[in-house]
């Protein structure tokens, strides 16, 4: 197992390396890299300053090393719009996105998997059909549309929940989190539900499909033949077996959730990374865009790594492949 982890870590590093080259090349391919860092209407003097500072007059490979060096020192430049270091900006916004995404993802898993398993266990029954119908809708509806409906129903019409912004926060580990306050939850509920819906539907469908397939296998029949109760079958056999594909999809969808957080944060004016990137795209705040890109790439590599490791942890048949 350890060998497997080390091997995967090594691969992750290689990928990160390749990604850094890709990003580097990409930045150059779009145009003058200077333009990524400074506003187009900066004076020539500032341009020259930056050119020397970032070594744009140096040969390419040296620039690459400078690039990597800056990466490792978290130096992404300064935001053109906010005028503070990009790193600081991103770190400020990160907790908001994190708590939104985590609440959404956990909610989707904790609700979706049991519902899906039930629907797969008794696929012909009325509750199963209702669950599947709802999951089809949840799966089909674009996130932003659900956001609309949710705001319209719960904020405008019923007035139960606020239509945007984050709630009160509490300082914890050096950052501000709103999950610790009741007001925070009032504000968190709608956007999290919005974000969770797609994943919830996906979890339901996957759990249902996996359960339905498994219930027909000899493994389950054999376990039943030894007298094990249906509950044991579901909990100890089916759940364990479907967790393999579920984890894989879960992990991959984590990235997708991060992506859709962009939409959700825009609709609910949630002060997170997603809103930041959209604003940056429109205001052409290129340093922020670049930093976001690198951050996301890094995050994906990490997620992939974790999924790979979980996969091997859950499926003993994979552990041999070292």
């Amino acid at each position, binding site marked *: 197992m350890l060998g497997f982890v080390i091997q995967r870590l090594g691969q992750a590093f290689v990928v990160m390396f390749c990604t850094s080259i890709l990003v580097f090349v990409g930045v150059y391919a779009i145009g003058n890299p200077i333009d990524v860092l400074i506003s187009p209407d900066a004076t020539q003097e500032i341009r020259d300053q930056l050119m020397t500072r970032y070594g744009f007059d140096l040969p390419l490979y040296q620039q690459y090393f400078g690039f990597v060096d800056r990466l490792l020192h978290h130096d992404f430049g300064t935001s053109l719009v906010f005028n503070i270091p990009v790193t600081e900006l991103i770190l400020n916004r990160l907790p908001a996105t994190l708590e939104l995404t985590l609440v959404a993802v956990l909610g989707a898993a904790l609700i979706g998997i049991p519902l899906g398993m039930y629907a797969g266990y008794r696929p012909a029954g009325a509750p199963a059909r209702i669950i599947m119908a709802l999951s089809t809708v949840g799966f089909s509806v674009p996130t932003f549309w659900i956001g609309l409906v949710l705001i319209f129903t719960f904020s405008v019409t019923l007035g139960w929940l606020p239509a945007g912004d984050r709630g009160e926060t509490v300082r914890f580990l050096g950052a501000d989190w709103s999950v610790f306050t009741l007001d925070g939850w009032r504000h968190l509920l709608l956007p999290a539900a919005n974000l969770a819906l797609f994943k919830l539907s996906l979890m339901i469908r996957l759990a249902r499909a996996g359960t339905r397939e498994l219930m027909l296998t*000899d493994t389950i029949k054999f*376990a039943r*033949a030894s007298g*094990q109760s249906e509950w044991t079958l579901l909990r100890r*056999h089916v759940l*364990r*077996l479907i967790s393999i594909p579920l984890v894989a999809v879960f992990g991959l969808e984590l990235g997708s959730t991060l992506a859709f957080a962009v939409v959700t944060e825009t609709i609910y004016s949630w002060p997170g990374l997603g809103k930041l990137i959209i604003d940056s795209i429109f205001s052409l705040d290129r340093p922020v865009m670049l930093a976001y890109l690198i951050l996301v790439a890094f995050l994906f590599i990490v997620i992939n790594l974790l999924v790979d490791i979980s996969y091997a942890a859950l*499926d003993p048949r994979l552990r041999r492949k070292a």
Partner: protein
Amino acid sequence: MTPLLEVTDLATHFLTRAGAMKAVDGVSFQLAPGQVLGLVGESGSGKTVTGFSLLRLIEPPGRIVRGAIRFEGQDLAALDERAMRRVRGKRLSMVFQDPMMTLNPVLTILQQMTLALRAHGRLPLPRIKDRCVEVLTLVGIPGAAGRLDAYPHEFSGGMRQRVAIAIALLHEPSLIVADEPTTALDVSVQAQILAEMRDLVGRLGTSLIWISHDLATVSSLADRIAVMYAGRIVEQGPTSQLLRRPRHPYTRGLLDSLPSRTPPGRELPHIPGMMPSLLALPPGCAYAPRCPRADARCAAAPEPTALGAVVLRCHHPLEASAS
């Protein structure tokens, strides 16, 4: 002596879109304690469904539509699911064909055996381990204590099947139903497992129903053989009698087509035609279309009749002389 198992007129039908598939249609047999019954037939004859029916493992759209399964004083066909669960695995267990499919690939052997043991009562872990090592050694797995934490894929095919058999033996059942347990294994391993099972059954006094399509395999193990065709038992009786003096034309045909019975170089005899679809069984004897002895009388389905030690469904039994 009261039979351990008495099946009377068992019928299991599958209600599909295309009609009722009569997989098992009026099967009756008995089994004494410690006896081995070989249930033989080609694919689709209903032998596997019979096995599953005994353990009440038939799922919709299948249903046991009539019949009784008297086992240790209870009619299994009439039990509710909770009561049946108490019987399954404890008094009556099953071994399936392909151990790679029946063992859960993500759980260790110990975990799976624990689940099977705990299905019928709480046991502390040390006792569980002891029992597991005991049965694993019984079925011929060397160094069992050290292999408890292994996964199924770490065993060879034969070993896996032994593990499955061990699981079936955990609660010392009085009857084991084995559905083609050696078919998925290598030929050399087949013979091994066969011999081991014969030995085990003799030692433990467990009754065994061995389901197979291969008459040859079964004949070395079974005390009695029942031959199934199109959902019915056409002939059943003591093994030696059935093999030497088969009374049903189908049994005769099966025996004649065994490679061991034909001298090398001669063409292998076979039964012409195919078994009818279970959705559209002819009204009379199901074998009639393929039978060289069929005539007008065969338009009426033959009922089971006793001819000496053999029970037969045939209007034209073969002569009671040596083949």
